[in-house]
């Protein structure tokens, strides 16, 4: 979707102005109230720490980013596969739905601790498993909805064309589920990053963004800890923007049908 220049500007200025004002307020507050660095470092100090540690932050970002990416890809693939099975077999759906709801009620991060016990201490597998699991449910729930929530009229039409179930799947259900998949990815992409570095809090190698944040806080290097938080923000943003760009490319008109109907 191509927007005229003026409209891009009118979309952009409120968040930019807000962001700048927020940073200025933060910087001023730290100076005026004389906050100690261990309490809240000013944005300028965080930026300096970020500049000074760019290489280290980049290394940590690669570790967490790869964990998030692997989990995102595997979780998405499994979620899509399972949603097709659910759409096909009603019984499976009846079995899976309570399980999915049940798992939502569990603080799912505790599973990392269990996964950690299953694998060697330096393994990245538990973290990737954790991301996979989180992404899997987000994708499963959304894509299953996309496959099943097809207009009654459209199904009647397909029957009037004597279309087989396979043809209905290919020509109606799958295209209908595509916008749902991208809605899921826009949620799952940043969630995968958050899950990847929160998983690092539960032990394992001290190499990712999450573990660096923890260790820097432990050493009272607050500005450095915040610099790693900034790195984590940028990583999450990169994942989200990638999902957004993929959606714009894949969905005709660049607006997901789900958003159009306001769902």
């Amino acid at each position: 979707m191509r927007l005229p220049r003026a409209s891009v500007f009118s979309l952009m200025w409120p968040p930019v102005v807000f962001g700048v004002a927020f940073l200025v307020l933060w910087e001023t507050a730290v100076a005026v109230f004389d906050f100690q660095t261990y309490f809240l470092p000013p944005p300028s100090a965080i930026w300096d720490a970020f500049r000074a540690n760019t290489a280290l932050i980049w290394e940590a970002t690669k570790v967490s980013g790869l964990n998030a990416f692997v989990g995102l890809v595997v979780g998405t693939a499994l979620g899509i596969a399972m949603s097709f099975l659910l759409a096909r077999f009603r019984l499976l759906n009846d079995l899976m739905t309570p399980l999915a709801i049940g798992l939502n009620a569990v603080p799912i991060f505790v599973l990392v601790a269990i996964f950690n016990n299953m694998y060697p201490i330096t393994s990245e597998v538990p973290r990737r498993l954790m991301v996979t699991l989180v992404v899997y449910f987000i994708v499963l729930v959304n894509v299953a909805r996309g496959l099943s929530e097809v207009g009654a009229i459209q199904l009647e039409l397909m029957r009037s064309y004597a279309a087989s179930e396979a043809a209905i799947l290919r020509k109606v259900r799958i295209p209908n589920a595509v916008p749902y998949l991208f809605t899921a990815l826009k949620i799952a992409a940043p969630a995968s990053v958050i899950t990847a570095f929160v998983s690092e809090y539960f032990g394992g190698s001290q190499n990712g963004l999450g573990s660096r944040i923890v260790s820097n806080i432990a050493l009272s290097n607050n500005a450095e800890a915040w610099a790693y938080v900034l790195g984590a923000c940028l990583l999450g943003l990169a994942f989200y923007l990638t999902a957004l760009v993929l959606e714009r490319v894949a969905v005709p008109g660049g607006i997901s049908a789900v958003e159009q109907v306001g769902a």
Partner: protein
Amino acid sequence: MNAVEVRGVSKVFNAGRPNAVEALVGIDLTIEPGEFVSLIGPSGCGKSTQLRLIANLTEPTSGEVLVNGKPARAARLDQDYGMAFQQAGLFDWRSVTKNVELPLELKGWDRARRRQRALEMLELVKLSEFADHFPWQLSGGMQQRVAIARALAAHPPLLLMDEPFGALDEMTREHMQVELLRICGQTSTTVVFVTHSIPEAVYLSTRVVVMSPRPGRITDVIDVDLGTHRDVETREADAFFKKVTEVREALRGIDTTGIEPDIEQALEEPVEG
């Protein structure tokens, strides 16, 4: 050979259960090729059910339905009819042309032939310049024209329409009626048309079938001899008003008290493939 033949058909929803409803009883109706037949009646009279029986989207409880001389199921499998509903039911992810091509895809036509036919159909409904648009970029009336182009794409001899103009404003509606008559005239398609607008039924039809609820049945069949050429003048002619009055009086005899609104929707049941 008759375009549609309905013989002694009845339809009971929830048969054998306490909430059983006789949607249709003792329906006999023969439609010849080239006819334009409207089914009219209050909500719950079974007019949509009757259309769905002809389309084989639901099976009769008793009696038989023949389309093009074949059992309705065989006619559906052969795609002997096209169908249009109150909602255009276009596919948002397909361009206008691709929407029109859909029934042809399912018939296994090759790409070039599909494309050519779709463009012909869009010309017929006067939407050629919107071929590459997407449905949500079109107005309601334009969407409905695409739906008609799609329904007629395979050149079926029969067109089944369930209140196709019900969601349109009055002016668009009258324009669409003119267009529909032109299109059906050019393609010599037989039409079965469900409506609850009396002037619409009279303007379009060669015959108006008046139906009554509880149980759903045909109470009257009125021939509309306004000639094959109908235009703006037709709507202002005395003969037109006389027919409108005749249909209105036929409907007046019908007891409409206590009818549950949208009973037909409430009775929707899953259809076997």
